[in-house]
């Protein structure tokens, strides 16, 4: 074995290869034997882990794209510029693989464009979500493409795409506002199924506001991981601006989380749901609110005040976990809460396996892009040409 081969077969790469191989087997099983063979879904629980995690969490955690690009290009915070490309790359991959994950749930990939071209359900929120996500994936692809075009040396097309940055950013914010909230609105139709502590007619507002926190937290969390694994790919500007970006995002996330806490409190009050807090579900709700809303809010504030990156990074982990827990609660844990335990949903190990497979594919693709293309650094031929 020569040095190149030795450096390729690291424990991380072996694990990745193992997960990818296992995922391909599960993919074959899913499409060959059908959805019943690999999932625990049934008529009571038609949406499981693939919707609750891959789609709900995937879309929320990919919000870093619109949060960062809006901060930089719409609000004029130019010192966030070096964070825009990594955030757009993550957002594009996140959304693209949300669509891929959706194919596992739908089962007939060739039917994916049906709602757009054959049978429009214009009164359905899912139609709005589908249309929005389809459009936003295209917008994100165009926003991300300059990195690939610089890598490939297509200067003219790249210069043309760069001119579209502002309208694309505006479109990105509009589309994100629409579909982030619509994902919450999907559950407004099920007041009898979702536990009252999580059910609210303001669910669209909760989903949209929490997506901003998810985006900010994800930018910090992803930046931490990138600094560990891809530090050598970062240029001086990126390294210089990294702390400022993290503290700025932390400050925003802290304030938004505090606002989120209060509107959740108003919601409990408006619906008079106080009596549910003394139940098991109530205890879990309090864990979510105190452990994953108030705690990260205070940690972010403390980190910003003390200029302490370690606290900010810990807070970002709580922020990201909080979004995952919230989406799990709304779509699975507090959903169908009145059903007897035997009829409740618990994911099959193969569903979990496919979700891990998709996350691994996203990380592998990100690594490939960040290693090859100018994402964490400026291409030497295009310095200051943004």
């Amino acid at each position, binding site marked *: 074995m020569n040095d190149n081969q030795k450096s390729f077969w690291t424990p991380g790469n072996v694990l990745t290869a193992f997960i990818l191989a296992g995922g391909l087997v599960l993919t074959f099983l899913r499409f060959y034997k059908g959805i019943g063979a690999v999932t625990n879904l049934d008529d009571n629980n038609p949406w499981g882990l693939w919707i609750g995690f891959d789609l709900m969490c995937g879309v929320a955690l990919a919000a870093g794209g619109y949060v960062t690009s809006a901060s930089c290009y719409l609000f004029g915070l130019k010192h966030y510029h070096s964070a825009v490309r990594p955030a757009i790359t993550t957002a594009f991959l996140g959304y693209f693989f949300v669509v891929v994950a959706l194919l596992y749930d739908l089962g007939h990939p060739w039917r994916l464009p049906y709602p757009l071209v054959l049978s429009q359900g214009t009164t359905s929120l899912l139609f709005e979500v589908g249309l929005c996500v389809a459009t936003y994936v295209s917008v994100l692809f165009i926003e991300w493409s300059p990195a690939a075009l610089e890598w490939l040396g297509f200067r003219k097309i790249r210069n043309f795409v760069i001119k579209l940055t502002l309208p694309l950013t505006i479109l990105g914010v509009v589309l994100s506002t629409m579909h982030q909230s619509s994902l919450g609105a999907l559950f407004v139709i099920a007041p009898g199924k979702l536990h009252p502590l999580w059910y609210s007619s303001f669910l669209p507002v909760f989903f949209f506001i929490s997506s901003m926190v998810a985006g900010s937290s994800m930018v910090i969390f992803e930046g931490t991981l990138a600094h560990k694994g891809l530090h050598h790919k970062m240029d001086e500007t990126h390294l210089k601006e990294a702390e400022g970006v993290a503290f700025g995002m932390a*400050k925003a996330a802290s*304030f938004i989380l505090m*606002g989120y806490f*209060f509107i959740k409190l*108003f919601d409990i009050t408006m*619906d*008079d749901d106080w*009596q549910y807090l003394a139940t098991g579900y109530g205890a879990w709700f309090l864990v979510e609110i105190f452990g994953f809303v108030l705690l990260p809010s205070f940690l972010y*504030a403390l980190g*910003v005040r003390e200029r302490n990156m370690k606290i900010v990074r810990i807070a970002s982990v709580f922020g990201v976990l909080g979004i995952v827990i919230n989406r799990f609660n709304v779509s699975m844990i507090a959903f169908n809460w009145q059903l007897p335990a035997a009829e409740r949903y618990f994911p099959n190990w193969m569903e979990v396996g496919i979700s891990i497979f998709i996350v691994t594919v996203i990380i592998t693709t990100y690594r490939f892009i960040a290693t090859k293309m100018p994402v964490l650094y400026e291409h030497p031929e295009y310095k200051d040409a943004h």
Partner: protein
Amino acid sequence: MEHIYYTLHQFMLHTKSITYVLMGVALVSFVGYWLFLTGRDEKMRKY
């Protein structure tokens, strides 16, 4: 303990009254929290 409301008016009066009080608390808290959050920021230069 769960409240028993005999009319929608009773329910709205009870819940909205508490909500308005909490909104007042929230507005004041936000100012305090913002000051806490930005308390150690560098002062903006005023010419």
